């Protein structure tokens, strides 16, 4: 007898709930996403290459990638520090600090964008100080990076925090008992444990940074070939009604993000193999 027909489900309601899920997913997400491929197929291969290798587009990718990468690295450092102090230390105001971490998720990106721009412009509270020693922050890559640090920090902290919480304290105590210094204990014993989580956070922060628009676009200043980010290029192509060009730029951006995430995933798998064999 046919196996499929034979198979029944115990909990009722599968058909309906699967139907609703697929219908909504298709209507709202999948069908629109498919349009990007339909639109891209309107370009010949040569045209496609020409669009995505244009000087402004290449510089856009470069700006987005380099700033997002720097920001994600900075976030790794502070993410580890923040997760560490939130899990391992007691100090007044800890609850508030913990609650604040999600602010970049809750605060609309445009608000963050104008706030950061005003703060870091040459006349702003912070930018002013730097301007006096000849460093401009707003409308430079430094400004873009700062905005991406802002938007990415919760990803890293929240990825590491649960892992640290679960990490047995006896583990590091054992290392201390063996006479290892605090620094040594951290880098040899604790860091390897939280590294995969940190990579996850790094990947999420990186992806978010590459795609981010609202908080970055104000502080970027959009100087061609210098501080134009890739999402902005898509935007301006759309404003000029160059839909296919916009699609091409977007597709490459998608591929870049995808490859980066795959790479990070591969590193993670590799890492977990190492740790699982050494155990």
């Amino acid at each position, binding site marked *: 007898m046919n196996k499929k027909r034979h198979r029944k489900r115990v*909990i009722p309601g599968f058909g309906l709930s699967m139907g609703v899920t697929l219908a909504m997913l298709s209507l*709202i997400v999948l069908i629109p996403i498919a349009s*990007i491929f339909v639109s891209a197929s309107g370009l010949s291969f040569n045209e496609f290459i020409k669009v995505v290798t244009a000087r402004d587009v290449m510089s856009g990718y470069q700006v987005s990638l380099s700033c997002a990468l720097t920001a994600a690295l900075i976030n790794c450092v502070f993410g580890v520090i*923040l997760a560490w102090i939130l899990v391992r230390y007691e*100090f007044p105001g800890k609850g508030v600090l913990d609650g604040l971490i999600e602010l970049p998720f809750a605060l*609309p990106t445009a*608000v963050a964008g*104008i706030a950061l721009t005003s703060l870091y412009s040459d006349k702003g509270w912070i930018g002013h100080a730097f301007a006096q020693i000849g460093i401009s922050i707003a409308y430079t890559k430094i400004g873009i990076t700062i905005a991406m640090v802002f938007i990415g920090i919760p990803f890293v902290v929240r990825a590491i925090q649960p892992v640290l919480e679960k990490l047995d304290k006896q583990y590091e105590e054992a290392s201390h008992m063996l006479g290892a210094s605090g620094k040594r204990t951290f880098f040899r014993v604790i860091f390897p444990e939280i590294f995969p989580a940190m990579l996850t956070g790094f990947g999420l922060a990186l992806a978010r940074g590459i795609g981010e628009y*609202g908080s970055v676009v104000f502080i970027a200043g959009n100087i061609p070939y210098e501080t134009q980010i890739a999402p902005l290029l898509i935007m301006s192509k759309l404003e000029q009604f160059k839909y296919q060009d916009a699609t091409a730029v977007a597709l490459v*951006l998608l591929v870049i993000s995808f490859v980066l995430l795959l790479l990070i995933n591969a590193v993670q798998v590799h890492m977990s193999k190492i740790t699982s064999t050494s155990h």
Partner: protein
Amino acid sequence: MSQTNKAIQQKSTNSNAKGVKVLLISLGVIFIFIMLVIPMIAVITYAFQDGLKAYQEAIFDPYTIKALQLTLLATVTAVAINTVFGLFAAWTITKFKFRGKQLLTTLIDIPFAISPVIAGLVLVLTFGKIGWAYDFLNAYDIKIVFAVPGIILATVFVTFPFISRELIPVLSAQGTDEEEAAALMGAGGFNIFRKVTLPHIKWALLYGIVLCTARAMGEFGAVSVISGHLRGKTNTLPLHVEILYNDFQLTSAFAVASILVILAVIILILRNLIEYKAKKAGEK
């Protein structure tokens, strides 16, 4: 090593550890203060820099009110649609075995992974003048791009996975035993869902709704692409902030932004409250 020597060393490592602790806490606090707190203070300060009257004017400006209304409409719709979706999707994924489950989970997460600008682009490509759905919609006189439905659709799209993402881990940790027990007694799907499953995800659902609200009300990139910036028509609060800012009406821009800051703070407080309650209820 002599006794005293050992003691001294002990003491020095202790004070060393204390030094590290103070250093790390300072670093963390300073980082959060500069990166997160000062920008919030800046928004509020700039908003009031021309006095209370200018602030009031900016807030009660008809365009601001209109933008607030549209933001609320888009947010409520997004939360409603995504709640329905989240409940169905989470129930389907966690309570049944079927092929392609992993693929389905990945597909649901797409909006989370792509740039909001690309999300907007995708909608323009589908429903805009060049989109293949345009002629069909036009025949029924439905306008999506550069119109309110587009704003709502973009908001729904961007926040689509938010609620299901919160529900799935909780439901999958709970397993299917209780539902099977209920099914064995002959209960129907809806009855099982309402009486057996729903109590497990009360807090997770609320949590998802709060996150979804936060993201929906603040969405900028996707909405920006699809809005056409029609003042009073397709302006949400974040877009309104942008327009004012680009018009060099800085005080007004920050005044409007301060509304969003207050909403964000409320959301943060709710979020932490719910997380605390959920932990207590043993859901997380």
